[in-house]
C-alpha cells in the first residue's frame, strides 16, 4: 500500500516536471522563432515539449479508460495532417479554423467541468462558477466567431460586412444576456437549462461579432480571435488549476494581442472601430460618384523596356497577386531583372495578404529570398531613389488618398508611398475598386502607367520580353 502511494506521488512529481520542461521549451520555441535562421529549431523544441507533456499525461494514475481518447487522438492526427498541408493561399482560413478548434476544445472541457462540479460534493463555489462561466462564454464565442471568419476567408460566406440598423445594440444585448446568465448561475449553479442557454447565447454572440466585419479587416479579426483563444486556454488553466495551460494560454493570448495591435496600427484603426465600425459601408456611395478620368496605359513590351533600364525596382505585392497565382512568375521577373543588374526589392505592407505576415509566406513559397523583402517603413525611406514601383494586385495599401483625402475611409492609414517613386506601374484587371472597394487616385496621376490584364499573364509576357529581347 505504502509503495503504491509513493508511486502515485512520484508519478505526480514526474508529471509536474515534464510540464515545467514543456513550458520552458515553449518559451524557447517562441524565442527562437524571432529570426528565420533559428526558427525551425524553435518548432522542433516546441514539438518536443508538447510530445513530452502529452506522453507524460498518459502515466496519470487517475486515467482508466483509454479507448475513446485514443480514437479521438488518432482522428485528430488524421484531420490535423491535411490541415497542415494546405496551400499557402489557404493558410488564413486554416488558421481561423484552428482557432475554432482550439476554442471548441477549451469550451468543451469547461462545460464538462461544470457538469462534474454541480453533481459533486461539495458543489461549485461562486468563485469556481464564475471562472467556468467566463471560460465557457469566451470559448464559445471564439468558436463560432472563428468559424464565421474561416467561412468568410474561404468565401463560403459573403466578404462584405453584413450589417443592419441597431446591430451593435442587438449584439450587446445578446452578450449582456450571456453575462446575466453567468451571474444568476453564480448564485445558483443548478438553475435548470440556464447553463446550456448561456452556451447557446455565447455561440450566437460569436456569430454576431464577426458577421458584420468585412473581408479587409480579417487580418485584425484573426489576430484578435487568436488572442481570445489564448485567453480561453489560460482561463481553463485557472478552472483546472493547471499551470501549463495558464502559461500556454498567456503566451498565445499575448501573441494574438500583439499581432492585433500591429494590424490595427497598419490600418490606423482602433479595436472598437474594427469590431463595431463595419468597414466598407461608405464606398458604395463613393463608387457611384466616380467620374471618367484619363489613365496612361502601357503594353508588356513597354513595361519590360522601362524595367530593364531601371536601376532600382520595388515590387509592391498585394493579395490580388496570390489570387492570380502570379507569385512564381513574379519570382521569374525578379530573377531576370537581377541578372540584368537591376536591384529588385519587395515592399511588404503589414496588412498585405489576409493575415499578419501572409505576403511574406506567399513570396517565400515562390522562392523569393527573404532578404529581398522590405518592411513598409524601409520601403518608404528608399522610395524617392526608386526608379520603378511595380504594384501587383495591391490597392488600398498604395492609395495616396490615405495621406491626402480626409473624406476617404482609409484616411490616416500608413501606406507604401509608391507615388514618391520616379515611375509607378500598376498591374490590374480593370479600374474596379479592390478588396475594400475604395477608389484609388494613384491610377490617374501622370507618372502612373496602368498595365491592364491578368497579373500572371502580364508578368509572364514581361518576363518573356525581357529574356527574349535582352540576350
Amino acid at each position, binding site marked *: 500500500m505504502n509503495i503504491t502511494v509513493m508511486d502515485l506521488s512520484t508519478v505526480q512529481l514526474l508529471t509536474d516536471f515534464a510540464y515545467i520542461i514543456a513550458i520552458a521549451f515553449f518559451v524557447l520555441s517562441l524565442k527562437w522563432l524571432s529570426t528565420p535562421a533559428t526558427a525551425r529549431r524553435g518548432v522542433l523544441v516546441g514539438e518536443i515539449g508538447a510530445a513530452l507533456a502529452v506522453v507524460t499525461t498518459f502515466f496519470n494514475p487517475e486515467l482508466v479508460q483509454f479507448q475513446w*481518447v485514443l480514437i479521438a487522438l488518432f482522428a485528430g492526427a488524421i484531420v490535423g495532417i491535411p490541415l497542415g*498541408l494546405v496551400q499557402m493561399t489557404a493558410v488564413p482560413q486554416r488558421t481561423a479554423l484552428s482557432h475554432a478548434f482550439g476554442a471548441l476544445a477549451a469550451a468543451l472541457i469547461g462545460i464538462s467541468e461544470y457538469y462534474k462540479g454541480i453533481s459533486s460534493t461539495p458543489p461549485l463555489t461562486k468563485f469556481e462558477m464564475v471562472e467556468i462561466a467566463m471560460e465557457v462564454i469566451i470559448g464559445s464565442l471564439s468558436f463560432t466567431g472563428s468559424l464565421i471568419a474561416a467561412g468568410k476567408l474561404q468565401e463560403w460566406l459573403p466578404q462584405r460586412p453584413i450589417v443592419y440598423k441597431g446591430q451593435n445594440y442587438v449584439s450587446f444585448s445578446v452578450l449582456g444576456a450571456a453575462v446575466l446568465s453567468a451571474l444568476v448561475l453564480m448564485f445558483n449553479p443548478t438553475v435548470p437549462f440556464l447553463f446550456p442557454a448561456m452556451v447557446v447565447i455565447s455561440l450566437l454572440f460569436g456569430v454576431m461579432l464577426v458577421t458584420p466585419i468585412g473581408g479587409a479587416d480579417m487580418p485584425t479579426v484573426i489576430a484578435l480571435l487568436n488572442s481570445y483563444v489564448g485567453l480561453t486556454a489560460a482561463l481553463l488553466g*485557472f478552472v483546472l488549476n493547471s499551470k501549463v495551460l495558464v502559461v500556454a494560454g498567456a503566451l498565445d493570448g499575448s501573441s494574438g494581442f500583439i499581432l492585433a495591435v500591429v494590424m490595427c496600427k497598419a490600418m490606423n484603426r482602433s479595436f472598437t472601430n474594427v469590431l463595431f465600425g463595419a468597414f466598407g459601408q461608405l464606398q458604395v456611395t463613393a463608387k457611384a460618384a466616380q467620374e471618367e478620368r484619363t489613365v496612361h496605359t502601357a503594353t508588356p513590351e513597354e513595361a519590360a523596356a522601362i524595367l530593364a533600364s531601371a536601376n532600382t525596382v520595388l515590387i509592391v505585392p498585394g493579395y490580388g497577386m496570390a489570387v492570380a497565382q502570379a507569385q512564381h512568375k513574379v519570382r521569374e521577373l525578379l530573377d531576370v531583372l537581377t541578372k540584368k543588374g537591376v536591384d529588385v526589392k519587395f515592399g511588404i505592407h503589414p496588412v498585405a495578404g489576409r493575415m499578419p505576415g501572409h505576403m511574406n509566406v506567399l513570396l517565400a513559397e515562390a522562392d523569393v529570398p527573404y532578404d529581398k523583402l522590405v518592411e513598409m517603413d524601409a520601403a518608404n525611406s528608399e522610395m524617392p531613389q526608386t526608379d520603378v514601383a511595380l504594384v501587383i494586385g495591391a490597392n488600398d495599401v498604395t492609395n495616396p488618398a490615405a495621406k491626402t483625402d480626409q473624406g476617404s475611409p482609409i484616411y490616416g492609414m500608413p501606406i507604401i508611398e509608391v507615388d514618391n517613386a520616379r515611375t509607378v506601374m500598376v498591374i490590374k484587371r480593370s479600374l474596379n475598386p479592390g478588396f475594400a472597394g475604395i477608389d484609388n487616385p494613384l491610377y490617374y496621376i501622370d507618372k502612373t502607367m496602368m498595365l491592364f490584364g491578368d497579373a500572371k499573364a502580364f508578368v509572364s509576357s514581361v518576363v518573356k520580353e525581357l529574356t527574349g529581347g535582352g540576350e
Partner: protein
Amino acid sequence: MPQGFIENLYVFLLAGFLGFEVIRRVSPLLHTPLMALTNALDAIVVVAAIIIAARRGSVLSEVLGSVAAFAAFSNMVGGFLITDRMLRMFKLSGRKKS
C-alpha cells in the same frame, strides 16, 4: 479567494509579460508562422482533454473530453506541421549565388 487562484494569477501575469517581450521580438516576416506555432502550443489543452476523457467519470465528460482531445490534437499536429513547412520556405538569396 482560493489560494490556487492567486498562484495562477501570478503565473498568468508573468507568462503574459514574458510572452509580450519574447513575441515582440519576432520579425514581422514570420508573423504567419508565429500564429501557426502559438496555435500548436495552445493545443497543449489536449492534456486536459485526455484527463477529462480517460478518468473515471460520467459518459458526458468522456464524450466532451474525447471531442476536445480530437480538436486540440488536430491543432497540435497540423499547427507544428504547417509552421515547419512555412519556415522551410524562407531562404536567403546569398546561398543561391555563392
